[in-house]
């Protein structure tokens, strides 16, 4: 079958979705290439799950079209799209054993029994659930259920696999482990993976490209690295990266906005700098230098040792109020709350944004 052999590209064309007068998606245009791992990320209510359901064929768009491999599938049932999906809730069939759960999509497709058995065993072994085939879902741990859900999607050898926050019900350690396994699976299977999450770390670690959604529109589409270094606007800058990027007026950071940025933004700009580009120091870094002005001081709010390094949250007391920023410090950095610290900012890494439009300058 051609469908099993080729990968699927997906094209979304001016997609809109309105629920009872509320606009959930406001015109989405996007092309996803064969074999890509694309992640949709955004806060809750950004429309990412709706978008996934429209691609799967579980919901119809109010306007716009969905193309898979050059075929318009906007009005096709999920069955005719040949798309697999892993649900956040796993949605395992509780009355069936793991074996039956895995075999279900193949039985519906009327595959012969021997082929089904072979595929089920192969998939189960690949996911390390070969020993659980006779169990019912209620006899499985959360992590095992997650693997069964994954298996039920992969057993069909789909060209296109959709993941709706598949890891969000796992504990932190298991989530990190499964994240790695998913990435490996994508490399092995060479299928197109489309992934929805609100966890920016998942988006960053897994994807070839990340699509940042906000209130039903695409804010930016870029590779994880590009998204991190070159956010198009303040929303993306804030959403990507942990701890969050520091945003303040240039004066707060003791910086002068570059002339070209000012001219473009009409005098009103905001500076944004990632925590790893701000160092917290116990003493003034350049006490005698001419540019001592950009060695600025603040008061320690809290100190969070992470092991390899330490994050320091600092209150910067300025003319217009207090700004709280996060800085990086050496692993052995220690300070009491309220004590004085100095900041050393890597000026070359500062991003400038228009204070009114929030767009990058």
């Amino acid at each position: 079958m051609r469908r099993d052999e080729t990968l699927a590209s997906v094209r979304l064309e001016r997609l809109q979705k309105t629920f009872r007068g509320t606009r959930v998606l406001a015109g989405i245009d996007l092309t996803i290439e064969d074999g890509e791992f694309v992640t949709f990320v955004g806060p809750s209510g950004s429309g990412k799950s709706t978008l996934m359901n429209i691609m799967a064929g579980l919901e119809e768009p109010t306007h716009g079209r969905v193309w898979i491999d050059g075929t318009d599938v906007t009005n096709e049932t999920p069955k005719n799209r040949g798309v697999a999906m892993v649900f956040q809730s796993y949605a395992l069939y509780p009355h069936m054993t793991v074996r039956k759960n895995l075999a279900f999509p193949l039985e519906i497709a009327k595959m012969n029994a021997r082929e089904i058995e072979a595929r089920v065993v192969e998939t189960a072994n690949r996911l390390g659930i070969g020993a659980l085939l006779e169990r019912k879902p209620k006899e499985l741990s959360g992590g095992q259920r997650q693997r069964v859900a994954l298996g039920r999607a992969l057993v069909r050898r789909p060209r296109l696999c959709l993941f709706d926050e598949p890891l969000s019900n796992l504990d932190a350690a298991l989530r990190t482990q499964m994240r790695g396994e998913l990435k490996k699976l994508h490399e092995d299977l060479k299928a197109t993976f489309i992934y929805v999450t609100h966890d920016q770390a998942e988006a960053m670690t897994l994807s070839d490209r990340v699509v940042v959604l906000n209130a039903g529109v695409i804010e930016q589409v870029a590779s994880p690295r590009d998204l991190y270094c070159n956010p198009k606007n303040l929303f993306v800058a804030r959403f990507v990266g942990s701890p969050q990027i520091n945003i303040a007026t240039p004066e707060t950071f003791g910086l002068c906005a570059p002339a070209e940025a000012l001219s473009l933004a009409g005098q009103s700009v905001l500076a944004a700098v990632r925590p790893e580009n701000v160092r917290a120091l116990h003493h003034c870094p350049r006490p005698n230098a001419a540019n001592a002005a950009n060695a600025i001081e603040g008061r320690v709010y809290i100190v969070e040792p992470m092991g390899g390094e330490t994050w320091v949250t600092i209150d910067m007391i300025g003319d217009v109020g207090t700004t709280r920023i996060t800085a990086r410090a050496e692993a052995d950095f220690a300070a009491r709350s309220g004590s004085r610290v100095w900041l050393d900012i890597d000026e070359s890494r500062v991003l400038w944004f228009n204070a009114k439009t929030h767009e990058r300058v």
Partner: protein
Amino acid sequence: MTSRSPLARAGLMLAVFAAMSFCVGPFVFQAITSLTPDRDIARTGLPSTLTLDHYASALAGRPFMHVVQNSIVVSSVVTVVSLAIAAPAAFAIVKLRVRGKRLLLAAALAISMFPPIATVSPLYLALRRAGLLDSLLGLTIPYTTFALPLALWILTGFFQDIPDDLYLAARIDGCSMFSAFRKVLLPLAMPGIATAAILTFIFAYNEFLYALTFLSSPDKRTIPVAISLFAGEHTEPWGDIAAASIISTLPLVVVAVTFQRKIVRALTAGAVKG
């Protein structure tokens, strides 16, 4: 659990016994009456001897077994038809986008609230026009119209408890709407089906007013009507009535026990989340 004081335990036992007596008492009384010789029936206390005469006389000279059969046939048909309609309807109302689903449910509830006595005359006229008076089919139709809303409401609740994601997953796995219903949702709704089946069967089995009004031939009668007509103008054969009641309880017990085993709670455990 075992840390209760003896007094509290005794109190609990007493309460349980009282509740049991309240529910089972009439049945026990009926069972004893059915075995009591006629001369002892008017007396209080236990009978001096036991007899099976009432069972013999309830069955002899009357088409009583035929009546029991009528009741079983009517109740079974009503149960099967009601569930065959109510189960897909409840599924569609709960899991699909159906316009006016609230209105439909409200209307169903309103219909089941109608007092039967208010509808008995128009139904009589309608059945006479249709030529269905004095036939079991003529009884089955109005029974189904009353049982259907009941079954629909019970099943709607059960389908609501099944996570939507299971339906969506079935669709993704290649099921049509109907095969998702048949292969995934219906098996999970079995406790609801069993509950609705028991209640529908009991309703049809016990119904008296329509059966009395619409049926006239002795061999078409259902159990409640037949038993009520045991009493003659000058005789009150309590023993025979009791024996007939005990006999007619047996099919109900069979139905209840059969379906009760299907009522397993937490059938959907393990479907979603960890």
